[in-house]
C-alpha cells in the first residue's frame, strides 16, 4: 500500500518538480539530480512523509536544499575552474531559454516566489507557507519579482540584486 502510494506520488510529480527546479537553478542536470535525491529521501521516510498535509512541499523543499547545497559546493570548484565548459543547455525554443536566463539574473528569493506561484501554481498563501514568510511579504515579494522579471524579459536589463545561482 505504502509502496504503491509512493510510486504514484513519484510518477505524478517528478516531471513537474524537475521543471520547477530547472527554473530556479538554470541547470537541467542539477534539477534532475536534486529532484531524484529528494524522492530517494522521501522513499526512505515515506511512512512519515505521506502523513504530512503536503508531501509535495516536503519533497520540493528537500530538492531545493539539495540543489543549493550542491550548487554552493560546486560554485567554489567552478570559481577555481572558471574556464570550465557550461553544461549543454537543453534544446528549448528561444522564448523559454530567454525566460530561464532572465530568471537566472534574479535573486534566489525572487526566483523561488515566481516558480512557486507560476509553475507550482500555488496560491499566495501557500507560497508564503512554503517559504516560511508572512502572506503580505509573499505578496510584495511576488510583485517585485514579477516587475524584475518583466524588465529582464523586455529589455534584458541589468542584474537585479545579487543573483544566486
Amino acid at each position: 500500500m505504502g509502496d504503491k502510494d509512493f510510486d504514484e506520488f513519484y510518477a505524478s510529480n517528478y516531471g513537474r518538480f524537475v521543471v520547477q527546479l530547472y527554473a530556479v537553478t538554470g541547470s537541467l542536470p542539477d534539477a534532475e539530480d536534486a529532484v531524484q535525491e529528494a524522492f530517494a529521501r522521501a522513499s526512505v521516510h515515506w511512512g512519515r512523509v505521506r502523513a504530512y498535509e503536503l508531501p509535495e512541499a516536503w519533497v520540493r523543499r528537500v530538492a531545493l536544499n539539495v540543489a543549493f547545497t550542491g550548487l554552493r559546493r560546486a560554485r567554489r570548484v567552478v570559481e577555481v575552474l572558471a574556464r570550465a565548459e557550461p553544461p549543454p543547455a537543453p534544446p528549448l525554443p528561444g522564448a523559454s531559454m530567454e525566460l530561464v536566463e532572465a530568471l537566472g539574473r534574479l535573486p534566489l528569493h525572487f526566483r523561488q516566489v515566481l516558480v512557486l506561484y507560476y509553475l507550482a501554481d500555488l496560491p499566495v498563501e501557500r507560497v508564503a507557507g512554503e517559504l516560511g514568510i508572512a502572506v503580505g511579504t509573499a505578496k510584495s515579494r511576488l510583485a517585485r519579482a514579477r516587475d524584475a522579471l518583466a524588465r529582464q524579459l523586455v529589455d534584458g536589463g541589468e542584474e537585479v540584486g545579487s543573483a544566486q545561482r
Partner: protein
Amino acid sequence: MRSDDLRQRFEALESEVLPLTGPPATEAIRRRGRRRQRTIRVAVLVPVLLAAAVIVREAAMLEPKPFQPKPFQPVSPPPTTRPAVATTATTAPTTTTRPAPTGTVVLRADGLGVAAFGTAEQAAMRALQGQLGRPQERGSWSGANPFGTCPGPVRAVRWGRLYVLFTNGPTRYGPDGRWHLFAWQVDQVRRTAIDPQHSGPTPPPDPPPLRGYSPRTATGIGSGSTLADLRTVYRGRLQLGPAESGPAYRFTVRRGATVELFGSLTGGTPQSTVTWLAAGAVCGE
C-alpha cells in the same frame, strides 16, 4: 508585462521541458534512498563505535587486572649525599625529561621519586604509569574510606601492594580544591575490599591479602623488612611502640619533629616484619 503573459510563458516552459526529462525507475530511486541511508548509518556508527571502543578501553583500564609482577630491579640510590628518606621536598621534580621506565618506583619521605607529594594528580599518574604501567585498581571515596580519616575526598590507585593516594582536600602538600598526590602506603591487605560503611553486629571479614609488586626505599626497606633492618637503617630516628590492640607494633621514623615514615610490624622482636609502611599526609595523621 502582465501577470497573465508571465503565466503563459511559464506554462510554455513547463510544456517544453517536461518531454526532456523522464523519471528514472522507481526502484532506482528506492535503491538510491537505501544507499544513502546506509551511508548515513555508517557515518553515524563509525564515530559511535570508535567512541565506544575508547570507553571500553578506558573502562578496562579501571578494572582490576590479574597482576603481572614486574621483577624487582635494584635501584641505585638517587644522586644525593643524603639518604633518600631524609628529604622533605614538597615540590614536583623539576626535570622535564621523562625517565626511562624501570618497572618500579622508590619509596621516599617526599613521595615516590618520579612524583613528589604535591604533584598534580594527572602529572603524577603519568609519571607513575610511565614506570609501573597500568594500575590494577582504582577507588574513590568522598567520605569514610579504608585509609582512615583523610583531609578530604580520596582517590586511591593500586599497583600490587603499593597504594598511591590523592586528595583535593587541604594538606601540607597542596591547597583545598586541587587534586594532588599526598601519600603512599605499602600494605599487605587489600584495603579497597574493606567496606568503609560496615556497621553490622559482627566484625567485618578480614580483607584479602595482597601479593605482587612491593616497592622499597632506596635503602631497601619495605614490606617484609624486619625490625632489625629498620634499626640498622634508621638507628636513633626509629621510634617503636605497641599498637592500640593486638600483638602488632607501630613504628615511626622522624627527622626532628617531622615524621618521615611510619608503619606497622608484626611484633616487637628483631625478627618481626613490616606489614605496612606509609609516608605523606597520611590519613589518620
